[in-house]
């Protein structure tokens, strides 16, 4: 979005800047054209004025010694004006050809002036005076003809140039109108696109917020990019988190309910079950039953014990006892649990030594604060599961190590049949089991106990087959 804002601002700036430059350039060009035109017209006026002045001087000369003759001062003033006009006129041109032409004209003007000065100052015989008059008159006539020729030719050229210039200015004017009209439209169009680019993603986010608020925690924002895409990703993460927390809350509520029910059930079943179990044991010990009857009694006793264990597990899961953490050496707990668990595998291997146990325990493992009983139960569950996973034998590897962030790592690795990847998420759910006689509470209880110690438990596939359970527990302060 930041990039789009910058690009948008750059576009606006470029449009106004280039438009401004073009408009200024156009106005300047039109002004220059008009200025040039005015100058040319002024020059033309100067030429025509010079022609008038020369004609007036020539007229003064023609009327000399007649009753229409003007005073000598007027004649001199007229010639001085003509001279000034000629200087202004000749001062306007610059190109070599025109300059040469004008210089020639200036020379003719000076010749005319010299002749005029001469006849005004001379006192001589009539023939000489008349000759000088004729010479001056001839010079004046030549000058008038030359000027008239220049004025006529330049006038035609100027008219054509004026027409061309005005047409050019007309085109510039039209282009300017188009630009002035199109500029705001373009700017509005860009502004609409720009605003839409901001409001549309905002609308999507607002709609998504309303959906989540309405309880649709599975709704996710799709299709947004840039900064809005980042906001959408954060929103989606938030929604996922909310969803997870909501499920956890629901599960906790369910567990609380199940726990209360289980506690009540265990409390109600425990005494009759104890009575049944005691009765069965008495009957078996008293004898009198033989053969098939005794087998049935023993089976009832086993099932009674199994119900009792199930009740205990259910109680542990639903209403676990409060942990009593103390600094413990995890290696010791593991050692004793391994020694205890091997004989108790539900599907103990028939061939002794078919299970190879590898202990890779870190001797410098820091102690951790944990309830040793609960941790022993966790390890016991995991070890039994590992042994059960290798009915044909295999390698059981138990390892500990100091992990990152002052955590200790415990890994129990088997080379058994492994757990399908899809099932790995399910195995920690209560009552989920793949065993024929499993309660489906062992891993759920283990997870509960580990989390109560401030740790985590996870499962993944073992390289070369089998499963790895990994527990991370916080190390005790040194």
């Amino acid at each position, binding site marked *: 979005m930041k990039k789009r804002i910058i690009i948008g601002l750059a576009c606006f700036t470029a449009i106004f800047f280039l438009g401004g430059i073009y408009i200024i350039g156009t106005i300047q060009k039109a002004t220059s054209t008009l200025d040039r035109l005015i100058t040319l017209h002024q020059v033309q006026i100067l030429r025509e004025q010079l022609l008038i002045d020369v004609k007036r001087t020539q007229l003064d000369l023609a009327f000399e010694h007649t009753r229409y003759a003007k005073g000598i001062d007027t004649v*001199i003033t007229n*010639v001085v004006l003509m001279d000034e006009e000629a200087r202004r006129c000749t001062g306007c041109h610059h190109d070599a050809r025109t300059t040469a032409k004008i210089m020639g004209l200036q020379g003719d003007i000076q010749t005319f002036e010299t002749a005029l000065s*001469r006849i005004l*100052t*001379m*006192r001589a015989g009539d023939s*000489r005076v008349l000759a000088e008059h004729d010479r001056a008159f001839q010079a004046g006539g030549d000058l008038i003809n030359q000027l008239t020729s220049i004025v006529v030719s330049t006038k035609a050229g100027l008219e054509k140039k004026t027409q061309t210039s005005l047409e050019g200015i007309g085109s510039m004017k039209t282009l300017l109108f188009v630009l002035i009209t199109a500029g705001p439209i373009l700017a509005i169009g860009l502004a609409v696109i720009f605003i839409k680019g901001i409001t549309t993603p905002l609308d999507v986010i607002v709609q998504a917020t309303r959906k989540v608020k309405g309880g649709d925690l599975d709704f996710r924002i799709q299709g947004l990019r840039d900064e809005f895409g980042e906001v959408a990703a954060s929103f989606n993460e938030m929604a996922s988190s909310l969803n997870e927390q909501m499920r956890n809350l629901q599960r906790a509520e369910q567990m609380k309910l199940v726990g209360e029910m289980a506690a009540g059930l265990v409390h109600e079943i425990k005494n009759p079950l104890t009575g049944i179990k005691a009765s069965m044991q008495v009957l078996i010990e008293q004898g009198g039953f033989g053969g098939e009857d005794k087998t049935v009694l023993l089976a009832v006793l086993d099932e009674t014990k199994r119900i009792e264990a199930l009740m205990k597990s259910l109680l542990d899961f639903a209403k676990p006892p409060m942990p009593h953490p103390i600094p413990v050496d995890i290696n010791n707990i593991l050692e004793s649990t391994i020694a205890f668990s091997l004989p108790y595998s539900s599907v103990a291997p028939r061939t002794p030594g078919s299970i190879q146990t590898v202990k890779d325990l870190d001797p410098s493992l820091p102690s951790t604060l944990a309830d040793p009983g609960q941790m022993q139960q966790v390890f016991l569950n995991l070890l039994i599961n590992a042994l059960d996973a290798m009915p044909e034998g295999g390698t059981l590897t138990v390892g500990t190590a100091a992990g990152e962030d002052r955590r200790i790592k415990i890994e129990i690795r088997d080379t058994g049949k492994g757990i399908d990847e899809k099932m790995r998420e399910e195995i920690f759910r209560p009552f989920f089991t793949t065993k024929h006689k499993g309660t489906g509470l062992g891993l759920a209880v283990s997870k509960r106990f580990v989390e109560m110690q401030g740790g985590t438990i996870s499962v993944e596939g073992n390289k070369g087959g089998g499963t790895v359970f990994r527990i991370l527990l916080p190390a005790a302060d040194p």
Partner: protein
Amino acid sequence: MKKLLIVFFVGIGLLAPWIGAIGDEQKPAASGSTFVIGLSPERNIFRQVERYTPLTDYLSAKCGLDVKPKAFTQYKDIIDGFARPGLDGAFLGSFACALAHRKFGAEPVARVEGLDGSSLHHGLLFVRQDSGIKTAKDMKGKRLAFVDSQTVAGYLLPLVYLRSHGIKNYKAFFGETYFAGTHEDVIYDVLEGKADIGAVKSSVYHELADQDSRIQWKLKILSRSPDVPETTFVLRRDLVPSVRTSIGDALLTMHDDPKGREVLKVFGARKFVAASNEEYQPVIDYARQLGINLKKYDFPREQ
């Protein structure tokens, strides 16, 4: 009655200076706020206006007056200009200056000092190289071009020269004589063959010779007169003293002023030097040699 007449005449006698003073009332300038300076037709009259305009503009700025140049086509007219209102000052040749003083009391104030450092000039009598004229005797029947009868170099000096060579009636001696009007016209008339002999002032001759090499190569100077004062600025007699002083001081000190020096450079002079009537005595002497009475001198017309 007799006593009354005596008292009357005594009273008139006592009041006479006052009456005279009324007649001599001083005027600030001839044309109200405009101070008019006449320009003699020493050269092309239009170039004279062009040449003197920066100078009059400078004087306007310096003196707080509206100083205007006025070109005259005849020396006679500019001298007569002092007889009536309309002319406050003028730049005149030395003979015209002496005439203006003798006839109308005009006072010389300042004289032009040329770029060569001289405030004097002399008269030149010249011919074309190919004219075959070498002496006064060779001039017989030829065409002589004067400048004007009120110029020393363009009229008096050639007459003195002719008289010194025994030619008293020049009109009978020459085939044609005329007044070309300006020094410049005399030079070009001889150069272009419109006249055979010319008489001009040396300053104009040499200035034009610097600009036009034909003058150097095609013309030949036959005679050179003694020096006489250069162009002089004169003021009318009845001018207010403060104006007279202001104009005179401005002219005489303009070479000390950077702006004034620029104007002088364009004008073609180094500075103006103070002028007095006594300096024009040689001119008066020439006139006397020729039997000219300056107070009664009228202006001879050539045919």
